[in-house]
Structure formats: structure tokens, C-alpha cells
């Protein structure tokens, strides 16, 4: 079992896969409890709520309390999944996540939806582009971003099995289904080479994985062989897979729907400087807030495109040759 990319035309939001899997898990594991903060329709915890009303707690518009209560539930042996928009579950509740959840090593799963620019029309106040940075900096925290519905489903199951705090970032918008459950294996902490290549390594997560794959095709048509790696666990980082890819290709591009500061680009950049210095280009939001617009338009407006990834790849290759 590896990580084959299957070309499917289907588009499903990762939050939808999460919501459905959570409802399945509810049947299998009676310790699973779910909390939401007045967004169960949006986060898709509504499916679990409907089937298991006794194990579902709507905390109202009170994200800090939701995370604190989740920590308390975890202390009694429950496995709480707490959902809201990523802005509020991570940003609003940060210090509760840090002290009540992580410092206590309580088994809370923060599964937050509507992350990044692809929230769309709600605009800058709702488009969190800092969540990866603020979550990955907390000790004990695991950070996961599924690239598609298949990975979201498998990751939801995996984190239910794993003991410890997890932040899982999910999206609002529909994204292409890239993987087939039958030949995709999700393991926490494992990055997957989903297209092998020799000239440049492209590391991506979330919605940017499909863009990285499209960029790989552009590069291929120009005679450049790019390796695409899906880094769906941002923390702990799969150093082996990442470093062996860079050792092979000699340069890297990171792609993320996140601010340029504190995300995967910084994580891989630091790893490379310590272990295997090589040229790196980072595709990310250039330290600006988002705004209202359609999800796809926004990705283009902020430069998160296959064309820019391909361009960055060529620049990285050029630097390597100097």
C-alpha cells in the first residue's frame, strides 16, 4: 500500500468526509463524544448529532468553553472531537488549547473547518492563515491537513485511534478527490511521495496538493521531472521522506494555503538548513489578510496557483545549478 493518485472527477469538501466518518465512528466507539459551537451544520458534526444526541454537546457560540469542556471530557476517558471554524477553534481558544489540552496531554481532537482563503465570501475575518503556525508551536500537539475527502476519512479514523491532542484542519470548499481508499494508506506522521521525480521536490498539503500535481504536469511538458510529496502531517514532520526526496532532487518548493510565516515552508526550511542545505522557494500567502471572493478566485489572487508553483520550481532548479 502506498499512495497512488487516482484521477477522479469527483469534488468533495474535506469537512463533508469528516462529518460522515465521525457519524460512522460514533457507532463503533462509544467513547467518542462531539462538541460544536453553533456551527454543526457547517462543520458537518450534524450527522453525529442526529445519530448520537446523548454524546453531542452544542456549547453555543463559546469556543473557549468548548475546548475547555472537551479537555475535561477527555480526562474522564472520553475521546472528544471538538469542531468549529478554524479561526475560532484555534485562534479564539488558543490559550485553552495550549494549557487545558496540550499541557495536560488530554486526548482532544480539534477538527476545525473553513480554514484558509477557500472560506471564500465570508472574508478576511474568517479566513485563518495562521492556524498551522499557532498549532504546531504547541508541545504535544499533532497537526494534520488532509488533501482530499479520502485522506480526511482515513485521518479521522486514525486520530480516533491515536492517543493525544490533534489539530486537524479541514476546508469548506469542494476539492478534487485524489486518492482511492483501496490503495491509499494514511499514517500519522507519514508523508507520501505521490509523484516521483528527480529535478525538484514539491511539498504541499491540503488544497495545494492538487495544485502541486497540476504544476508537476506543466513542468513535465517542459521536460522537468518534479517529485510531489503530500505532507499531510505537518507535525510531527516526516523528516526521512522529506530529506530523502531533497537529497535526490537537490531543491525544493513548498506550497500552502497559509501565511508565509510559520507554516510548512518554515518547517521544511529549518529542517533543510540543519540537515541538508539546498535551494528552497515557498509558495504561500505573502503576509496579507484575505478578503471576500470566490474560493478559486482568491487562490489565484493570492498567487497560490499551479503556474506559480511551476515557476518557483524552475527558479529553485536554477539556483541549484549555480
Amino acid at each position, binding site marked *: 500500500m502506498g499512495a497512488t493518485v487516482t484521477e477522479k472527477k469527483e469534488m468533495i469538501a474535506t469537512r463533508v468526509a469528516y462529518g460522515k466518518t465521525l457519524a460512522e465512528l460514533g457507532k463503533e466507539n462509544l467513547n467518542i463524544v462531539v462538541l460544536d459551537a*453553533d456551527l454543526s451544520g457547517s462543520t458537518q458534526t450534524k450527522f453525529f448529532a442526529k445519530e448520537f444526541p446523548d454524546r453531542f454537546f*452544542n456549547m453555543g457560540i463559546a469556543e473557549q468553553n468548548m475546548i475547555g469542556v472537551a479537555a475535561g471530557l477527555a480526562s474522564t476517558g472520553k475521546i472528544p472531537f471538538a469542531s468549529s471554524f478554524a479561526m475560532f477553534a484555534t485562534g479564539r481558544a488558543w490559550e485553552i488549547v495550549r494549557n487545558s489540552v496540550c499541557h495536560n496531554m488530554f486526548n482532544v481532537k480539534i477538527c476545525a473547518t473553513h480554514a484558509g482563503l477557500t472560506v471564500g465570501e465570508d472574508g478576511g*475575518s474568517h479566513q485563518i492563515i495562521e492556524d498551522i503556525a499557532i498549532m504546531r508551536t504547541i508541545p504535544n500537539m499533532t497537526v494534520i491537513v488532509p488533501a482530499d475527502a479520502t485522506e480526511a476519512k482515513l485521518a479521522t479514523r486514525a486520530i480516533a485511534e491515536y492517543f493525544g491532542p490533534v489539530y486537524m484542519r479541514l476546508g469548506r470548499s469542494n476539492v478534487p478527490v485524489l486518492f482511492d481508499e483501496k490503495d491509499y494508506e494514511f499514517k500519522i506522521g507519514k508523508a507520501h511521495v505521490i509523484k516521483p521525480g528527480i529535478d525538484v521536490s514539491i511539498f504541499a498539503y491540503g488544497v495545494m496538493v492538487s495544485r502541486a500535481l497540476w504544476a508537476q504536469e506543466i513542468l513535465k511538458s517542459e521536460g522537468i521531472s518534479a517529485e510531489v510529496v503530500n505532507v499531510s502531517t505537518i507535525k510531527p514532520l516526516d523528516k526521512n521522506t522529506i530529506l530523502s526526496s531533497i537529497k535526490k532532487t537537490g531543491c525544493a518548493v513548498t506550497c500552502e494555503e497559509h501565511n508565509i510565516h510559520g507554516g510548512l515552508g518554515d518547517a521544511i526550511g529549518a529542517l533543510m538548513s540543519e540537515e541538508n542545505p539546498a535551494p528552497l522557494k515557498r509558495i504561500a500567502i505573502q503576509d496579507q489578510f484575505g478578503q471576500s471572493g470566490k474560493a478559486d478566485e482568491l487562490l489565484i489572487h493570492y498567487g497560490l496557483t499551479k503556474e506559480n508553483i511551476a515557476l518557483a520550481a524552475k527558479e529553485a532548479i536554477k539556483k541549484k545549478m549555480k
Partner: protein
Amino acid sequence: MPLSDEKLNELKLVCKDLRKSILKMAHAANSGHPGGSLSATEILTVLYFAIMKYDPHNPNWHERDRLVISKGHATPLVYSILAKAGYYKGDDLLTFRRLGSPYQGHIDRLKAPGIEASTGSLGHGSSLAVGMALGSRLDKLNNRVYLLNSDGELQEGSTWEAIMSASHYRLGNLTAIVDRNRIQLDGWTEETMTLEPINKKYEAFGWHVQEIDGHDMNQIYNAILKTHEIGIKEHKPCVIIAHTVKGKGVSFMEDEVKWHGVAPNDEELAKALAEVEKE
């Protein structure tokens, strides 16, 4: 003292225009928040056109009254009323929620004039208003700070931290109005997370409390004037719990959870506009 008949009629026409604009904006954007815009229409109309001192040509006039809209999703209403108040022409309101538009999904003070503070994340506005009230007092200004809260955001702990601090600092220059439409996003407030008794909670936190019909503009007007009086006399922050109907003015939107954050389609828009027109 009631509003004159003439004034009241003028305000009613304003509300009618605002409701039409709210519906058209949500329709054009195919998203947005009509329900909580329609419920607060009379409240903001009275504030902007019968109470507040402001200068649309000089939005940063230091002595202006300040209004913090803590329910920052009520953008169709806020952007429509700012146009009516003369901050901008508003002939481009239908670009609402599109890329590059000044009219963002949640109010953004850096993109359109007349907005005191960008909000959208619930439970921020009350603290901002307390800060503005303290600042106004330090500057010995004769102005007032108004605060529009949703009922749902009274579930946020941050809101109560602000409420506690307002009475501690004896902010008689602060008037809060709660749009008590009883509906939040997932459902009725009392089913999602009990808020009642709201009046006793505010009282226990040291506030002066009034309860009114939030669609009766005379009641709104008089209640606000009363807060000015109490504020000066008792140095207490004042809250008006305005009982409203979410989706007010459009029969099929009224008291319907669904219309919190859904836009009307062509047919629904036509029906809704006809109803508002007939009112």
C-alpha cells in the same frame, strides 16, 4: 417624547429601502446574512437618523458618537445604511462579497468608511466599545458610544468580561442594544445554549436594563434617550434588550433558522421585495 409623525414616516421609508437593499445584496452575492440584518433594521435606522451625531464627510471627526456593530455579519444592513447616511454613494452595493469589493462578507473598517471597528468574529465588539467609552471619557468628550450586540454572542465569555468591566468603570456613556431575535445559527438560542434571564444577568452585572419591541421605532428612540439620562445621572452602562424577529418583513424568512445565512433566489427575491413594498 414620541417621534413626530412626519419623522416616523420618514424613518419607515428608510427601513423599507434598507430591507430592499439587504435582500438585493444577499441575492446578488448568493450568500450573506439576511435574517439578522432584517431584525436590526429599525434599531440602526433610529440610531443613524434620529440619534447619533456623525459627519459622513469627516468619518474620523473626533467628537462623533461611535457605534460598534458587534454582529459583524449583518453586512447587508450596515453597508446599506452607511450609503443612506451619506458615507458613500452605494451604487456599487451589489458587488457585495465579490473579490475587490469594499463591501466585505463581514464589516471591514479598512475597506469602507463609517465603520468604527472590523468585526465578524462574535464576542469582540463589547470590549471594543468599552475601550472607546473609556477613551472618550479620558478626552472629556461629550459623545456617546453605542454597541449593537446579537443575542447569540452573549454566549461568548468575552462578552461578559466586557459587560463586567463597563459597570466597574461606571461607563455611563455606553448604550448597548441587544438584537434579541432568539435565533442563532444552529437553531433557537434557548435550545442551543440558554441565555435567559438576560435582563437579570445584566442587572447582576451592574447595568441599567430596558426591554422593548425592537421594531417599534418610538420605543427604540425613547429607550435610547432614557439611557442618556440614566448614564449622566447614575454613571451606569445601559442595555436595551430589543425583542425582534429574525427575517422581519419577509413572511417566509420570519422566525426561520434557515434564513440566518442563506440568500434568496430570483423567485424568493421577487416575492420578498413585493412584500416589503406592500408593508
